[in-house]
């Protein structure tokens, strides 16, 4: 009797394979490169892990991938832990991934560079889209861990510089798995809230793994989409993240971010002092000037030598009076003269009338001779008739 080969149904065979595989590979660690990475709306991850000669399907359920601090990218080399499972309806096997970590720090660096290049090409880092950061904000939105040192630092800077401000914090996970999603939610929350003038998004320094959330694509896109300008402040001075490149401004630390967007109380006091000083200088100068011109007036010739002026005026009056007197004198003199002239004319007319009646005037030595005794016989004489003179020469 020939040995009968047991005929199995597809399901039975698959079940056998499943049992064999799943028992033999209940715990595997594999190193490989990620490709075809897809995150479904459900939150589950589907991707392939490959090397030069082989490829294997992978799934990572949300319950597990939420503990991965980074989002895998195609090309990233990772070390997975998980088990082999078989999926009978499709007849395939895959790694059911329980944990994932980058194969080395270099992997993250490379992922960083890849994403940077991609987003740069898309224009997310363009200077042209960077908006100005307000210097007199009223409300500042903050995306960070509410119990973190960064928030404490920002509070103390705000309190010292510009306590007129209101800080509106959207508490966020900033490290580890789910941090990127939390940051995205917080940025959206502050945008929906709508009353903040600027958002500071960041955390204190740390390792590249610690800061990784700020290198995630979803965070970059949320920053890009934000209607409110965002200052990215991640870590210490040397740490650069993708978020820093997309943000409207990159600050080296959260404290500096707060400093950049708040005016300083001391500076405002200085500003007030300067302006008041200038104003009071101008005012006191003006008053001094007015004072000076009053003093000038008081000390002026007119005021100081009032007496002199009066004396001077007196002189003038005197001069005028004497002038008047002179004129009067002159007038009197002229009048006198004309009176004289008139009277002599009148006189001469009288004499003429008398002569006409046949009288003669005798003149000797330019004098009229009024009597016979005055006449000198041996001297020339002049006989004055009404119609002419006769000279008698001796």
């Amino acid at each position, binding site marked *: 009797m020939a040995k009968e080969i047991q005929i199995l149904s597809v399901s039975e065979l698959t079940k056998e394979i499943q049992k064999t595989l799943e028992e033999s590979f209940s715990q595997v660690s594999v190193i490989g490169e990620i490709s075809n990475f897809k995150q479904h709306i459900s939150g589950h991850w589907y991707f392939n892990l490959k090397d030069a000669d082989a490829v294997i399907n992978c799934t990572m359920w949300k319950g597990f991938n939420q503990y991965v601090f980074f989002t895998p990218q195609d090309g990233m080399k990772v070390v997975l832990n998980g088990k082999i499972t078989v999926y009978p309806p499709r007849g395939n096997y895959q790694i059911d991934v329980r944990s994932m970590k980058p194969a080395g720090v270099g992997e993250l660096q490379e992922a960083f560079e890849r994403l940077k290049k991609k987003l740069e090409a898309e224009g997310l880092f363009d200077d042209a889209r960077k908006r100005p950061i*307000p210097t*007199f*904000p*009223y409300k500042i939105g903050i995306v960070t861990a*509410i119990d973190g040192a960064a928030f404490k630092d920002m*509070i103390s800077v*705000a*309190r010292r510089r*510009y*306590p*007129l*401000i*209101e*800080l*509106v*914090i*959207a*508490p966020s996970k900033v490290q580890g798995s789910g941090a990127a999603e939390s940051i995205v*939610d*917080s940025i959206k*929350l*502050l945008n*929906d*809230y*709508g*009353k*903040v*003038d600027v958002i500071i998004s960041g955390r204190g320094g740390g390792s590249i793994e610690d800061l990784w959330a700020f290198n995630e694509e979803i965070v970059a896109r949320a920053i890009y989409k934000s209607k*409110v300008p965002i200052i990215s402040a991640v870590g210490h001075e040397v740490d650069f993240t993708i978020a820093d490149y997309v943000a409207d401004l990159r600050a080296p630390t959260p404290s500096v971010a707060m400093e950049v967007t708040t005016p300083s*109380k001391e500076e*405002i*006091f200085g*500003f*007030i002092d*300067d*302006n*008041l000083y*200038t*104003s*009071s200088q*101008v*005012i006191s100068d*003006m*008053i001094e000037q*007015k004072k000076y011109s009053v003093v000038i007036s008081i000390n002026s010739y007119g005021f100081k030598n009032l007496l002199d002026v009066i004396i001077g005026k007196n002189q003038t009056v005197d001069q005028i009076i004497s002038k008047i007197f002179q004129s009067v004198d002159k007038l009197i003199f002229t009048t006198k003269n004309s009176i004289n002239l008139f009277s002599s004319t009148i006189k001469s007319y009288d004499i003429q009338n008398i002569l006409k009646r046949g009288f003669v005037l005798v003149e000797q030595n330019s004098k009229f001779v009024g009597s016979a005794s005055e006449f000198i016989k041996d001297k020339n004489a002049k006989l004055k008739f009404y119609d002419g003179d006769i000279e008698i020469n001796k």
Partner: protein
Amino acid sequence: MPRTKKKNNFEKDLKRLEEISILLEDNEIGLDDALALYEEGIKLSKNCVKKLNDAQLKITELKKDLSEISSDT
């Protein structure tokens, strides 16, 4: 960008103060007007200094459901 009255006022007061000192420096106004401006400037300054000195930083926490928890520190 949402802007509120309160914010505008502080910034505006400082701007006005600067404006006053420029007006005064220009030296083109009479003493009476200058004194009036100066008085205004003093008032503004006092106001601003008082506001800053009295100010208490306000911190508001946003919850994911948009409710606000306010706390003065």
